């Protein structure tokens, strides 16, 4: 058997897995810190993708550089979303908080998706840079520049977030709040401000994920649900609130999907992740990398 296409497939699985990872990290952060399950995360990725697409189309700014515009914009949007909507659910008990945030963000998904259709039509779009088709070829295996760069950017962001959470005061405040918000508030941490920051970092990560998606894949108003499901699958695989675990699980899902082509055929690639997800939920509800 010729191994070259298999390895090529796995390499592409690795690249898409990096995107699943960064998509999931943002979702995981909001869920871990304030127990807000934001199913509009995929729609925020879509939004980030459009922002980066328009910046490229209007001003010709390279999508990788545009991240420095996309991420702050989505950060600001996240602050607005939290203050306008999700702030109200953080007053509830944990179970109602999760349920109501799920419902609210479901409504938000509908709004974002249809506003996007209104503004930018339902057409599929992608950013085509001048170096879009180029890449390295090693031993017959292709490494397109855009995808390699996406993986590197995703990894940098995730490790930067990890360092932020472990090394800085604000990051430690976020972690303390996620463990026990009452104790954290007794220690003088402003819990509501911590929630805003954590949520907005999550949406900024969605913006970065969207920018990376727009370079190598397609964006359209309807991609939100697909990306939300991917991110949820990865978060559950990794265990809620585990940042590095979410990134690793994202790559794992990308590789699993790539391998599944040989087991069940390309048409069922999407099904594999979903079934895997339900199985993990049933067998190991705390996730593969989670602790009880």
């Amino acid at each position, binding site marked *: 058997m010729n191994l070259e296409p298999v390895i090529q497939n796995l390499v592409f699985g690795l690249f898409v897995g990096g995107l699943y990872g960064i998509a999931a990290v943002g979702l995981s952060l909001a869920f871990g810190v304030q127990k807000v*399950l934001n*199913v509009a995360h995929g729609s925020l990725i879509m939004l980030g993708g459009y922002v980066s697409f328009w910046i490229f189309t209007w001003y010709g700014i390279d999508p990788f550089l545009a991240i420095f515009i996309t991420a702050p914009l989505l950060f600001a949007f996240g602050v607005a979303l939290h203050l306008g*909507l999700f702030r*109200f659910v953080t007053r509830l008990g944990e*179970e109602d908080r*999760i*349920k*109501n945030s*799920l*419902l*609210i963000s*479901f*409504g*938000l*998904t*509908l*709004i974002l*998706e*249809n*506003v996007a*259709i*209104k503004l930018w039509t339902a057409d599929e779009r992608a950013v085509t840079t001048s170096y879009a088709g180029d890449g390295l070829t090693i031993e017959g295996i292709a490494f397109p520049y855009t995808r390699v760069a996406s993986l590197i950017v995703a990894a940098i962001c995730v490790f930067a977030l990890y360092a932020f959470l472990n090394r800085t005061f604000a990051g430690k405040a976020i972690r303390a709040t996620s463990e026990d918000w009452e104790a954290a508030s007794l220690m003088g941490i402003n819990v509501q401000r911590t929630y805003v920051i954590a949520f907005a970092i999550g949406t900024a990560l969605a913006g970065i994920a969207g920018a990376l998606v727009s370079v190598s894949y397609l964006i359209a108003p309807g991609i939100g*649900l697909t990306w939300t*499901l991917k991110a*949820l*699958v990865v978060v*559950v695989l990794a265990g809620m609130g585990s940042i590095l675990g979410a990134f690793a699980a994202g790559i794992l899902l990308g590789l699993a999907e790539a391998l599944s082509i040989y087991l069940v055929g390309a*048409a*069922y690639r*999407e*099904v594999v992740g*979903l*079934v895997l*997800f*339900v199985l993990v*939920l*049933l067998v190991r*509800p705390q996730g593969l990398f989670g602790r009880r």
Partner: protein
Amino acid sequence: MLATGRLLERGEYQRWIRLARPAIVGLLIAPTLLVPQFTDRRDTLNLLFLVYLYVSMAQSWNILAGYAGQINLGHAAFFGVGAWATRGLWTDESVPFLVAFFLGGLAAMLFALVFGLITFRLRGVYFAIGTLALAEAMRITVANLLPNIETLPGPTIARYDLEPRYYLALGLMLFVSATVWLLPRTRISLGILAVREDEAAAEACGVNPLLHKLVALALSSFFAGLAGGTFAYYHVSYYPSFTFSPVWTFDAVLATFIGGIGTLAGPIVGGTFFIWVRERLAVSLVDVHQIIFGSLFILVVLLLPGGLVEGWHRVHRLALRLLSRTKEG
């Protein structure tokens, strides 16, 4: 003044309402039975058909979500299975339609029981996303297995008549609503409500949560399957994967929440409101209805968890209080 004043004596007023209720319900249902006798305008009949179908879907979703407290985001799968089984038996196996229709509901129920045995191991929000994931897996599988558009055979199209479709959907809506009306009057509903309020406490009292959730799911999926069968009877051609689309779930969720979850009237009000607004807006502004429903939905979740029905009760109480105050003054 005196007459209204006496009418507003608390007990008196409520007795009047109680006596008048069957008459009001009768007055609401009677015209719907007669519509096809007075008009053969297809747009009117089609619109009412959609209202009945959506109310049925919302009501069936409400059984599991509103009464058993399980937010099932895989409801579309039951609709799809019902549509698939009904259409297959009716057109391919030439089973008489009503038999195929009933079997379609049963097929959806059987599927749902397997579905429930897996997903009811998940709690709360994990149940919600687990059901969504399984239903999406179903939709993709169906899209792969049955990629071709499904069309009624020529002779059936030639005999196509809107009237029986209208009555089927109307009958289904009345059937589901009657079931939901009867539900709180049964013993098993006490167990179902107990599971909704506190699963652990219910179990401690000797209520089997899984059993009661499965009963609610069986009812819910049976009616969703019948709604799918109604769709399969009504639509000349459609892609089988369309009946598995999450839109069927989401629309039912929206209609139920906006109307009022966990009430009999909620899905009826919500489903009617949903279709009415959607069709109103479809003429001029495509897709704006989803923005409106999304916003309304968020407002309901945040400010008015009882939906439009709760809003009506609040207005009603306020009006009563104001009236009785003017009487005193």
